Structures are given as C-alpha cells and as structure tokens.
C-alpha cells in the first residue's frame, strides 16, 4: 500500500489545468511580442539593409540614414519601366535630361529621401531633455533624501511627484505648449520680433528678449524633461537609499560636512543607479509623441537644425534651441497616419519604424548592460 498516494485526483486535475492556463497566457504575451518584432524586422530590415531585399543591393542604405525626408516622385520612363526618385533628385534629373519621357507622374508626400532629420531631432530633444531632467532630478532627489526633514511636507512633495508620473503625456504636451511656447520666457535673440516680445534687454550685442519660445527644440526638450522628472527623481532616490548608512556615518564621523559627505561618500556610489535609470528614461522620452507634437516637432524640414542656426556664440545656441525640429516618433506618426500605404510609401513607413525600434532597443540594452556591469563591480 502506497502511503503517499494522491488522495484526490480532481484536485490534481484542477491544479494541472490552472498551471497550464497561466503558462498559456504568459506564452501568448511572448508570442505577441515576438510577432511584432519579427514583422517589423521583416518589412523594415530590407529598407535599411537592401542586401536582404529580394532585389538585393548595398549592405546598408546610407542615404536612408543621412538624407532629409522629402516627397517621393513616381513616374514611368520611356521604356515603360516604373521609376521613383526623391523630389530633389527628380528635379535634378529633369534638368539634366530635359527630353526625358515622364509619364504617369505621381507624388507621395514624406516618402522620399531618408530619416536624418527625425534622427538628429530626436537626439537633440533627448540631449536637451536629459541635461535638464538630470540636473533638476538629482538635485531634487538629493534634497528629498539627504537634506529635507522627513515629515508630512516631504511626504506630500513625494506624492505630488508620483502623481506627476501618472499625468497623460498629451496633458504634458498642452502644458508645454502653454508654458514654454506661449508664455514670455527669456531667450537670447539678434532680432526682436515686436509682436512676440514682451520686453527686450540689449545684451552681448543682441537682446535678451522675453517672448514665447514657440515650436522649438527647447520647449520640446523641457516638456519631455518635466514628463520624465518623476521617473528620474524616483530612480535617483532609490539609488541614494541603496547606499549603506555606514558610508554616510563613516564620512560624517570623520568630520565631513553634509555636502562633502554627499559628494564623496554618497553620490559616487549612486551614480551607476542614476545612470542606468537615465538611460531607461532616454528610452521613454525618445518614444514620446504627444508632448512634442505641440511644442517642438514639425513634419518636414529642409535642413538639419545646425545648418539653419544663425548668429554667433550664445546667439547661435539660442537660435538652434528655438528652432523647430523633426523627431522620429512624430515622423512615424506622419508617415503612418497622414499618407496612404502604397508600394511607394511602404519603404519609408517600414524603414522608419524599424530604425526607431533599433534605436530604442539599443538604449534599453545599454541600460540593462550598465545595470549588470555595475552590480557586478560595486558590491558592499
């Protein structure tokens, strides 16, 4: 007689069914994710790397990465063969060959050229955003965690910051539009627009003008910074909390001032955590569309931001910062929502999404790598 024989076979069946159900749901999520990745890669990879397309070609289509988005022109040439050229190439071609047969000419907005503008724009937005968010976020976290008297007031500040994380991104976009684009804030400018400027103070051979920043890199970057601040502050606080109390005590007991203690015995060891969180924050802000669609992004631009900036020194910087930019998420929104999907437009649509996905996944991987690396290196 087996004393360990199962007493209830119904119980056993139920258990088995349930565990199977949970496993099924888990694998379903995994399946969806993999399907999305492979679908995007299948369609997008040949655009970026024509060597994988049916026709074959170069290893990497550098034009796609280095040219600005343009209108794409489709036409049929004298041999009845279908051709498609970016509009600037088409104009050059017709100038060089005035007699060329162009039939069935059709233009497709946003579908030609490459994605250099959106890539650069997103990079600049992320840089402006992270510089501001890190300075403000680390300062706030250090204050809340190290200096502030822990009490009801600090608790309320923490709650407010956490609530900020729950605000929908479109609301941040509208806030940014009202506060950074319209509200008169100081900015350096060479030429004062009387209508826009509330007041202008002559300075450094130009003016410090109080005016709305308009649709600009600065407004977009700051809006994104406000949006990502709660994440950065929370991550910084976590990193600061993870520093053993012993470090602070040892430092203070040796006669360090509060700031010396923070600078030499806390922040250096919190940096890896802050860095990891920041990279994750970058992943998030790089992908946001709503906050920048009112504050920074435009669908089409002829030149890269620094090619358009005027002035010298501080005025060059402020001109760059107050110029609108293209951005990857907004570009994808444009090519996905505003133009139909045809054979002519599909390449731009699929290619943009694929490159953007690669970009974000790279950031995420860097973040994971940093976390593992520092966890191994810093143990106490």
């Amino acid at each position: 007689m087996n004393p360990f024989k199962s007493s209830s076979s119904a119980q056993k069946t139920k258990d088995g069914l349930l565990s199977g159900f949970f496993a099924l749901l888990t694998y379903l999520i995994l399946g969806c994710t993999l399907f999305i990745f492979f679908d995007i890669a299948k369609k997008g990879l040949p655009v970026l790397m024509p060597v994988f397309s049916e026709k074959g070609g170069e290893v990497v289509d550098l034009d796609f990465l280095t040219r600005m988005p343009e209108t794409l022109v489709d036409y049929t040439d004298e041999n009845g063969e279908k051709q498609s050229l970016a509009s600037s190439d088409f104009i050059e071609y017709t100038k060089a060959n005035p007699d060329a047969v162009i039939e069935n000419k059709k233009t497709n907005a946003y579908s030609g050229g490459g994605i250099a503008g959106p890539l650069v724009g997103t990079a600049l937005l992320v840089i402006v955003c992270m510089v501001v968010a890190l300075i403000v976020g680390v300062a706030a976290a250090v204050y809340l965690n190290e200096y502030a008297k822990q009490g009801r007031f600090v608790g309320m500040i923490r709650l407010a910051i956490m609530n900020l994380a729950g605000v929908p991104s479109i609301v941040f976009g509208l806030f940014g539009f009202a506060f950074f684009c319209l509200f008169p804030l100081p900015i350096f400018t060479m030429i004062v627009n009387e209508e826009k400027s509330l007041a202008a103070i002559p300075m450094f051979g130009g003016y410090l003008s109080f005016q709305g920043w308009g649709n600009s890199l600065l407004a977009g970057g700051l809006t994104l910074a406000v949006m990502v601040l709660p994440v950065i502050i929370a991550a910084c606080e976590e990193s600061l909390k993870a520093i053993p109390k012993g470090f602070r005590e040892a430092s203070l007991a040796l006669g360090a001032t509060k700031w010396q203690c923070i600078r030499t015995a806390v922040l250096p060891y919190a940096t890896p955590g802050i860095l990891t969180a920041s990279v994750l924050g970058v992943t998030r802000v790089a992908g946001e569309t709503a906050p920048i669609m009112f504050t920074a992004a435009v669908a089409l631009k002829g030149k890269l931001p620094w090619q358009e900036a005027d002035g010298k020194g501080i005025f060059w910087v402020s001109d760059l910062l107050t110029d609108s930019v293209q951005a990857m998420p907004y570009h994808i929104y444009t090519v996905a929502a505003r133009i139909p999907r045809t054979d002519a437009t599909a390449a731009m649509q699929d290619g943009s999404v694929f490159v953007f996905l690669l970009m974000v996944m790279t950031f995420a991987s860097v973040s994971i790598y940093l976390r593992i690396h520092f966890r191994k290196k810093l143990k106490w």
Partner: protein
Amino acid sequence: MVTTSPSDPMTELATPVESPAKASPSTKANNPNPIAEQDAMIEIDDVSFSYDMGKTNVLKNISFNIPAGKVTALIGPSGCGKSTLLRCLNRMNDLVDTSKVTTGQIRIMGQDINAHDVDPIELRKQVGMVFQKYNPFPKSIYENVAYGLRIQGIKNKARLDEAVEKSLQRAALWNEVKDRLNSSALGLSGGQQQRLCIARTIAVNPRIVLMDEPCSALDPIATARIEELIAELQEEFTIVIVTHNMQQATRVSDRTAFFYLGELIEYDDTTTIFGNPSVTQTEDYVSGRFG
C-alpha cells in the same frame, strides 16, 4: 572651574570657546570612585536623551566622568542606551531629526558640546568613531585612510603618504597591506577592514576614539587583534568602547559603566565592577544571571 589656558585643546576647534563650562556637580552615589574633574576628558552631567522630541527618554539623568588616556567600557543588555550615549559624544545622533538632549550637559575638554556655537563637524574631527559593522568605503586602502585628511583640504601627496603610513602602522595593519595600498579595501578580511576603519579614524588625529561594538562582526582571532590594538592606542587616545562581550570589557578596559534601561546603574574601575560590584543588578548581569 575649567580654565581655558592657551594650550587648552579646545582652542584648536574652529568655533571659539566663549563660556568655560560650569563646575561639575559632585558625582552621584552610584559612582563611588569618581574621576577627578581635572583628569576627566568627558564629563557627562545629568544627561537625558530622547529620540522623539522629548516624549520618552532613552537615557535618564546619566552622570559620570570619563578619564583621559584610559579605556572606558559601556556595558549592558541590548536597548539599555549605551550606543545612544556613545553617539551623543560626537553628536552622531544629530542625524536623527527628532533626537534631542532633554536635560544636562556633555562636556568634552570642558566645552559643552551641545552649545549653539559648537560646530559638530569640528567636534567630530576630535572625537572619532569606529562602527559596529566595519564600513570602509569602496575605494582603495590608501584612499580610505586619506579620506579624513582629504576632506580637510590636505592635498600634499607627501603629507598624505606619511599620514597614511603612520595611521596604518598605528592600526597594526601596515605590514599586511603596504604592498597593495591601491587595491580595494573591500578585498581585505573582516578584521583587516575593521582595523582599516580604525586607521581611517586615527588618521585625522582625534583626541577621543569612540568604538561601537567594534568586534561584534568579527571572529575570535580578529577580535583578539583589535583588542591588542585598543591596548596600544590607549596611550595616545581616550577610548570609549561599547561592548556586549563582558570578557572583552574585562580584557580591554580600565573603567566600566553598566547601563540598564537607560540608566547608569554603576560606574567604577573594571576590576571592581566585575570583582566586587556594589549594586546587585550589576552583579547579576556580570555574572550572567540576566541579560
């Protein structure tokens, strides 16, 4: 009266000493063998201390004098306030927002250390502390010892080198680490790390070294080495050590204070406390009947 002579150590503090401390009242009855005022490095005078703004006192009217150049052990069961008292001596309790010395005065070298014109940073340069859990920074051995000097703004390499070597020698660690000063302090054994922490503390040349159960995380051999070290350091520093280990108190200390539930029960020469205590509670504790 404690007079402020030109050679008075307190004049080394950045904060000028304005009012010489008032005369200490005579020590209480449970202190039959008092330390004469002129020999006292630390005078604890009717001190009560609270962690919650005075609602409950974890130290209750403690009075005793700690002699200069000797080792004084604070013993007692967990939660009796001995560590709290130790942390009052270099104002580490300031880190707890709601902590408060509710009554009395602590005078070190004659100066009330809770006076408004005492800078706790200057105080801590003179009153060093070694913690229960050895806590070297995740830096090199050299940088750990040099830390206190660096935050005082000393950059001169030769001076730092000299101070690091001297401190490590005084902490009996030099011979073990002299060939790997630039490797991480975390690669040392527990006992070595604690001796490194002692070296780090004495590198800034304090007058007093507070030790909060310095051996509780160490094995018997490492403990023995720390105890030897304490005996050597006693010549240069006034040492106050909190310990759970009564044998340790008998081995290292000259004077012992026994605390129970926030009160000082008895304070006397260590031999008297362990050999012939005058209070029954002390006798029960040191003989292991409770605690």
